[in-house]
């Protein structure tokens, strides 16, 4: 069974549209129902195999010119902490890029669009995604064995809503480099969930709240295994009044692993009535585990609400005692608390995108397997 089939089956994403990438590049925008492909992938009459341009149910996809290096340079996050560790694999900006533009119009129903990036792609992927005014979409980016960078340039127009789910498929060990920029217009909202349970990763997000009432809520669940490095940089910039942001990150680190949540909430002068919160926490399972949490706030306006919290710690002894007092062994109590550290983010992802319930169940099972070792 090919990787893409294994991933699709595991995550239960059979009956929704997919942007399907293979080692040859983009294939099509097509329903991924099994009956459509009894003996292999059926020809998609709405896609032109030569140009890979597709139109379906209010969505259009077309290849575009590769962005210039200076455009890609914008995807590098702002330095948050001078003493931050150098990454083994910094985000490249002069790489060969396959670029596509995806537009999603309001079609009266929510679009669930898993984007598979599986296998070894020959070049970096650049996706320019626009949600037209009033559109609602859930885009789930599933990456497996992929080493090349991924760039997402997203524009949320007035009153649109995007659920962006970034899932690194467990079991495929590789470096992941992912960076995205999101511009959020008046009344529009972004909800982002990122889950990475193995592999080293460098993920950077920049969100610009550019219209009144714009909102961005981001959550990350990270399980860092021994000798892995996972770094998540997120900047949310409030540029107009009455905008809301909330970052919530939880990570678990095994021996010799390294994890970092670097959050930066910026409220510029004039963005009064805005609210910015962030909460980044790591649970270190071993003294050799290394973690850093930077919940940074930069505020240049008086009339705002802002809060930030960050912690790196070991398991709470009182919680362990409580669970043991009910008959759980120390190992069972450790496992339950560790899994519980990540589950709120997975549960919230399923709550926001019910179509991902089976996906979340699969990810929960992987977490349980990891903490039961």
């Amino acid at each position, binding site marked *: 069974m090919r990787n893409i089939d294994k991933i699709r089956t595991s995550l239960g994403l059979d009956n929704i549209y997919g942007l399907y990438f293979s080692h040859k590049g983009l294939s099509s925008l097509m329903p991924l129902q099994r009956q459509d492909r009894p003996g292999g992938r059926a020809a998609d009459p709405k896609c032109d195999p030569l140009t890979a341009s597709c139109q379906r149910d209010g969505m259009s996809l077309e290849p575009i010119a590769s962005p210039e290096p200076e455009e890609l340079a914008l995807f590098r996050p702002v330095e948050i902490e001078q003493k931050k560790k150098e990454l083994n694999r910094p985000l490249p900006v002069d790489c060969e890029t396959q670029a596509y533009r995806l537009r999603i119009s309001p079609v009266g129903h929510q679009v669930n669009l898993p984007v598979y990036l599986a296998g070894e792609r020959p070049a970096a992927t650049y996706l320019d995604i626009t949600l037209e005014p009033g559109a609602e979409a859930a885009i789930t980016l599933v990456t497996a064995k992929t080493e090349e960078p991924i760039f997402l340039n997203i524009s949320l127009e007035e009153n649109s809503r995007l659920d962006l789910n970034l899932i690194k498929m467990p079991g495929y060990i590789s470096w992941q480099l992912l960076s995205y920029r999101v511009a959020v217009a008046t009344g529009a909202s972004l909800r982002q969930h990122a889950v990475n349970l193995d592999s080293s990763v460098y993920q950077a997000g920049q969100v610009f709240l550019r219209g009144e009432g714009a909102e961005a809520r981001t959550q990350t669940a990270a399980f860092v295994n021994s000798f892995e490095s996972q770094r998540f940089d997120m900047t949310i910039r409030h540029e107009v009044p009455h905008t809301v942001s909330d970052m919530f990150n939880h990570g678990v680190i095994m021996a010799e692993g390294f994890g970092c949540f670097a959050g930066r909430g910026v409220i510029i002068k004039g963005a009064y009535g805005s609210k910015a919160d962030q909460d980044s926490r790591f649970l270190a399972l071993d003294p050799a585990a290394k973690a850093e949490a930077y919940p940074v706030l930069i505020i240049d306006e008086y009339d705002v609400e802002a809060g930030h919290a960050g912690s790196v710690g070991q398991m709470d002894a009182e*919680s362990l*005692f*409580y669970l*043991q*007092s009910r008959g*759980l062994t120390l190992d069972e109590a450790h496992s339950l608390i560790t899994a*519980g*550290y*990540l589950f*709120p983010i997975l549960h919230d992802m399923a709550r926001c995108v019910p179509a991902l319930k089976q996906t979340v169940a699969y990810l929960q099972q992987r977490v349980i397997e990891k903490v039961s070792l």
Partner: protein
Amino acid sequence: MSRPVLEIKNLSCSVDHKEILHGINLTVRGGEIHVIMGPNGTGKSTLASTLMGHPSYKVNGGQALLNGEDLLAMPVDERARKGLFLAMQYPAEIQGVTNADFMRTAMNAKLPADHQIGVFPFRKALNQAVSELEMDASLPDRYLNEGFSGGEKKRNEILQMKLLKPAVAILDEIDSGLDIDALRIVGQNVTRMAQDRGEEMGLLLITHYQRLLDYIVPDYVHVIMNGRVVRTGDKELAEKLERDGYEWLRQEAGLEAEPSGSETAADLLSGLPL
């Protein structure tokens, strides 16, 4: 199930190198309801936490036997599996773990691998207990104690006791933080459980107030002062304490007033983050 017995013999213990209990003697048998009262900082919660095996408390001497087995030699989880239960004054909040998942795990921890409780019998028992305690129906699917009010936490402790069916249950100030209705519901549930299980379960209640005893009628009332049991009586003793306070007993026992501060802090340590 045979009639359980918890024997506490000359137990002394300390926390932070300060001795709190100076030789406690107490025997709780199945079918009996014992109540421990006493001023703040005298060691009531220390006794409960020490029996359960809280790592902050160091046993300096004496014994605690459950059905003849040395309780103090067992790890915390083994004490629980042997049938000891502690309803805590400050239950921990565990994020990401639902009440239902936790309870099923705890129930199965006491059962052999080939007799684990199935999903449907478990949900039936859970829903019945939730109903009897007049708790919110959504409670089983909420995270363990997270965001619970003080009253909800206490009811959740009783819910766990009902499902785990312990041999000896210690309820540490289960009445604190309860409003009038919640106090009645908790009291009635504990009494009903004690009646239903008869000699299969012994109860040891720690409380400051006689009002709980309007619903749970004790067989014995013990007063702990300065780390020792200084008087044992029946419900009338609790009523006299409620009416007259502890000073008469202190004078009668020839005790000096206990210093507030360090001992109170030690008592409060149970349930606080370490």
